[in-house]
């Protein structure tokens, strides 16, 4: 009989919580924090007007206004901080059909964003941004630099928890280079917990 993840973790941690469970606790504990939604993050008419294509992780070309309304989070590096948000909702409860938006904060060097998600329960990696499908360019500038591409959470996203990996690289990162882990020319990277919920 297949063992549950909880059972395996329980034994590996010899009854303690261990890192993986502590990470899940953190994710839930943070759910109560305020998540200010700037005006441009709210569901806007552009979502309807942009002709969202309900396909597998279709990249949306959206004209995200530049601004400093993002709250930077994720891994800090000298080159930039990275952020991702669920437009109109929260990453902790992002309804299917929502759009994920990506940004670099205070990038000090030009680069390209790359991103993918992995279901925490295991399963296929879901590609968001890569050289193969379009890696948005980011110019060095102060403040928030949102990507011109957002990602629609299509039917390939089953409800449940995911880990979103976001990179800023010097050259557009291909899926092949991302499969190998951290691309060699990575300027910044961050991971985020995403929980997709039903509409």
């Amino acid at each position, binding site marked *: *009989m*297949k*063992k549950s*993840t*909880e*059972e*395996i*973790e*329980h*034994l*590996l*941690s*010899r*009854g*303690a*919580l*261990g*890192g*993986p*469970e*502590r*990470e*899940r*606790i*953190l994710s*839930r*504990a*943070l*759910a*109560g*924090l*305020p998540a200010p939604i700037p005006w441009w993050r709210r569901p806007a008419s552009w979502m309807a007007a942009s002709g969202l294509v309900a396909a597998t992780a279709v990249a949306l070309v959206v004209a995200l206004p530049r601004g400093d309304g993002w*709250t*930077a*989070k*994720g*891994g*800090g590096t000298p080159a930039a901080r990275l952020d991702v948000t669920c437009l109109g909702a929260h990453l902790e409860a992002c309804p299917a059909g929502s759009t994920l938006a990506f940004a670099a904060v205070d990038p000090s060097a030009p680069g390209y964003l790359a991103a993918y998600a*992995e279901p925490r329960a295991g399963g296929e990696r879901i590609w968001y941004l890569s050289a193969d499908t379009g890696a948005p360019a980011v110019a060095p500038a102060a403040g928030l630099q949102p990507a011109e591409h957002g990602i629609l959470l299509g039917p390939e996203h089953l409800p449940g928890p995911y880990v979103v*990996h976001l990179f800023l690289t010097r050259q557009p990162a291909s899926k092949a280079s991302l499969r*190998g*882990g*951290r691309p060699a020319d990575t300027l910044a990277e961050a*991971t985020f917990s995403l929980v997709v919920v039903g509409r």
Partner: protein
Amino acid sequence: MAIDARASKGGPLDPMPIFQDSPALLRPFRAGDRTACERVYWFYVGSVETIAWAAVTRDAGSPHRSQARRAEVADLVQEVFFKAFGERARLGYDGLRPYAPYLYAIARNVLVDWARARGREIPTEDGDLEAALHDVHEPGAHPYATPDRVKVVERFIRSLPDDLRAIHEKRYVAGLSQRDAADALGLSRQTVRTLEAHLHRKMEEALRELELEPALVTPEQQPAPGWRR
């Protein structure tokens, strides 16, 4: 963000007061910034876990760390930090006093409520539960499974190759986040994930072998009900 593993594991009451050591952290923390809250969490989660375990095992009257009790501890730790990250608690902290006693007071309230809901009482005197933080235990010092399973797990851990042993140490003994484990080991997070998945598979295989053992017994040798290996 590299976290001191000792702080993450629990131990001293407040070895290096986080807000005194990093005063710039106070403002974003009080504002509810997630990164600031994450830092606070990883700094104190080990201590809060230790206190929660002390309460749960005292309540049960047994040091056994069963899977059910572990789930209970996880719920309690979550509740403590959920409250600590609530607006009232964040704004109620002035940054002048050490944060640990403030957090432990929140933990004590959570544990008192939990005990009351079960019709029980736990000691509420200041410092009583926190005294558990001074106890030093080797990993696995508390019973956490049936003896045959413990034997398999301990044998499995001892047999791990260096790379998997390092992952086990950082993730399951030190309780570090995947990011901090990767930093500590000089690996990418993808590598840590891959090794961790490998560790899980091997652990599962080891347990499966344990469960398959009775299948080697012939029908004539089937033990009587109640027989234990």
